[in-house]
């Protein structure tokens, strides 16, 4: 028994099976990420003043990762086109570049961007104690300018004892009245050597920048985590199609391998597209 239209197209639909399958799968993926992004929108609209952070992520690194993903989307198309022209050698190289792009993206995300956040510290100040930390928050000036209040002090946690946290401040808390700090920066500013002592009894809640820190980081880690799992899945599939085992399929039926690359390429474009939404929503806006 053989199932028809696995490789050739069905005349009246003009499609082979897996192509319909992958588009349906992508439709469900749109709904999955749609659910997560709509949660992001809900949470952001609902966020109390000062609780939704801006400019905490590394924009140049994010831009580089965006470029890497877009490039991999181009190379996967070139890989597919090479197969269609029956040039296996070129396919092999393009596929290798695609895989490396995916691996670099994941490495940057997991080994650089995430850990950097895990080392960053933030303390939300109780409303009644905000005045004590005015020199780090600059709320008087912000109120006059009609800006959202600052309720959080961030930086690197040097040490803590039973009574207080000792924090090396982020520039935004080191010079809160500097108008340059009102907007996020494209180039991330390093933590200053200015130290602040925050009394624990003034702190509403203080954690590292983990998912639990606020709803912004909750959605950031959930969405980029799920996106990263999709990248990983794509990379694994590409590795399978790049290994010698797929060369044997190529020798037997090159069109079959081309179809496989086309289908997984479509998935890869989708993963790319999700990132095109993730990048502005979390890094820029």
């Amino acid at each position, binding site marked *: 028994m*053989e199932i028809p239209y696995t490789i050739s197209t069905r005349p009246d639909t003009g499609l082979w099976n897996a192509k319909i399958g992958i588009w349906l799968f992508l439709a469900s993926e749109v709904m999955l990420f749609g659910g997560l992004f709509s949660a992001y929108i809900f949470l952001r609209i609902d966020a109390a003043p000062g609780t939704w952070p801006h400019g905490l992520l590394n924009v140049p690194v994010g831009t580089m990762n965006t470029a890497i993903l877009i490039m991999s989307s181009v190379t996967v198309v070139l890989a597919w086109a090479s197969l269609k022209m029956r040039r296996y050698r070129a396919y092999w190289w393009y596929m290798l570049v695609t895989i490396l792009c995916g691996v670099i993206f994941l490495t940057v995300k997991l080994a650089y961007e995430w850990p950097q956040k895990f080392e960053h510290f933030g303390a939300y100040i109780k409303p009644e104690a905000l005045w004590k930390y005015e020199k780090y928050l600059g709320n008087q000036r912000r109120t006059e300018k009609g800006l959202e209040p600052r309720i959080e002090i961030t930086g690197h946690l040097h040490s803590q004892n039973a009574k207080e946290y000792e924090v090396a401040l982020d520039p935004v808390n080191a010079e809160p009245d500097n108008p340059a700090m009102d907007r996020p920066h494209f180039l991330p500013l390093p933590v200053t050597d200015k130290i602040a002592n925050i009394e624990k009894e003034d702190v509403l*809640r203080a954690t590292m920048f983990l998912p639990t820190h606020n709803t912004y980081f909750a959605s950031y880690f959930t969405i980029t985590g799920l996106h990263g799992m999709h990248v990983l899945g794509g990379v694994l599939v590409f590795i399978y199609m790049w290994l010698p085992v797929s060369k044997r399929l190529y020798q037997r039926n090159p069109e079959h391998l081309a179809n496989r690359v086309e289908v997984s390429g479509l998935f890869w474009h989708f993963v790319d597209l999700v990132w095109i939404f993730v990048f502005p929503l979390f890094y820029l806006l």
Partner: protein
Amino acid sequence: MDASTSVETHHEPHGHDAAHEHHELGWWRKYIFSTDHKVIGIQYGLCGLVFLFFGFCLMMLMRWQLAYPGQALPVIGKWLPHIFGAGTMPDGKMTPDFYNSLGAMHGTIMIFAGVVPLAFAAFGNFVVPLQIGAPDMTFPKVNAASFWAFAVGGVIMMISFFVPGGAAKSGWTSYTPLAAFSDTGPGHNPVFNGQTLWLIGFIFLISSSLLGAINFITTIIQLRAKGLTWMRLPFFVWAQFVTAFLLLLAFPPLEAAIVMQLMDRVAHTSFFLPSGLVVNGAPVSISGGGSPLLWQHLFWFLGHPEVYVLILPAFGIVAEILANNSRKPLWGYKSLVFSVLVIGFLSFIVWAHHMWMTGMGTAVSAFFQTTTLLISIPSVIILSAFFISLWGGSIRFTVPMLFATAFLPMFGIGGLTGIPLAFNSADLYLHDTYYIIAHFHYIVAPGTIFGLFAGIYYWFPKATGRKMNDFWGKVHFWPTLICMNVIFLPMFLQGMAGMHRRWYDGGQGWTVANEHTIWGLTGFQWNAPISWAAWIMGLAQIPFIINFFWSIWHGQKVNDNPWEATTLEWTAPSPPPHGNFIHTPVAYRGPYEYSLPGSERDYTMQNEPVEPAERTRRKPPAEPVLV
């Protein structure tokens, strides 16, 4: 079921190398890790039936507590604590936590591990490829993956009964913030606790449905036999097609919600947790800023299409059986098809009618009230077309037909009692009462489950080559029908009298349940007859279980088309071999050509070519001659 490959000696003419058609698969590959759509369908069916029965048992336990609150359960009450843990039923008396677990898991198991796998996956897998004349599903390995994802999900749900603290107990809807904090704290494992396992199990069940849905849609689009155009598809195939789209598009937002609730529980995020939350009298250390309403929106965005996932396959099954047993074409085939498509579309924009108690605002309520009433139109069209299909037919009251005809009024009651709930103002009164329980159970219990029983009796001969016993089928049918109504009809009255659906003591301690009498009994007193009907209905399933297994090996042997039906699955051998058809079928006509004028038999199968004589017979008569 013993689809032996040796039957495959007649090769299909479009020859590819015959070598790989003669693999003798081992027993494990043939019956357990199979990629054959029929075996997978039967696996789904058996698992689904087991889960249905298990879910029903949970409810039978709850019915004891409702009818006789605080009394020790006789006989089995002694050994239940040994199974479910000492804290569940000390001395045979049910604890509130265990009662809540049973309620939550009854809903979850019945819907997601029982009815969906049976109605969609089992019947869809077994029947759809046969009805469209396909050799298998388009992606057999994905199909097997779908079944195994379901099996893992089901096992995780079952395991959750045996972890410290017991299974999930926040209702089958798992509303937050309650669900975010249940099964946490001392004595609970951070991962292996009821609610977290519920979430993890759900991820597997959702993945299973997604894989299945993709496979079904692709199969129906790509593998229809030659000549089987869209408007020649049996209605069952259409119903499964729309159902697959519902699963494909409605489940992922719930998966997103489940991932977020999992994050709330495991990574202590606050997706669904508002600021300033106090649990057990103490403020909890969370960031807050989340939205409990967000969970409800995402849950019901699945939840409502899910209702149609439960009912549409039953519609499909009933349509096939009505046409077959009334020996008459299905009335209004086209309007049925368009109705089912409209239902599919509308079901995505009615979800918030489950949330009127949350105070979303009048504008939102007005919108969803309108769409909810709109969706009743195609549903009524379908039910009316079914009733009209019976008109003037020469009805054969076979066992499948009994269940199918009983489906019509039962679903009708369920549907019509939903209309008051569609109105915001009426719903505020009826919400969370037994009225709701009665309403949706009329749709899914005597509705869908009757459809499923009908389907089992109807397609059993195709799967096994043997018929189930008629007499015992009737012994199964009549008590089940009567008990269903004794169970659910009084619940409408209880609900209208104001009885709340989540009372652990069945209303014993509440004035409203003891003051008013309905037909001589108070609301609380009605619990006992309802419970007895439920237990008797449990006994009434014994003939079915015995009949089912006995008939697999000892049932009356029948030919390939015992019901004298018209659709393509009846042209395949019973049981169909691997690859299904001996000759690749071609469809020449519509699916329900019963009692064709001028035909010798009262049924003409889809693969019978249209003869020239028939063409002339079918021509419309010439202009009437006026004298």
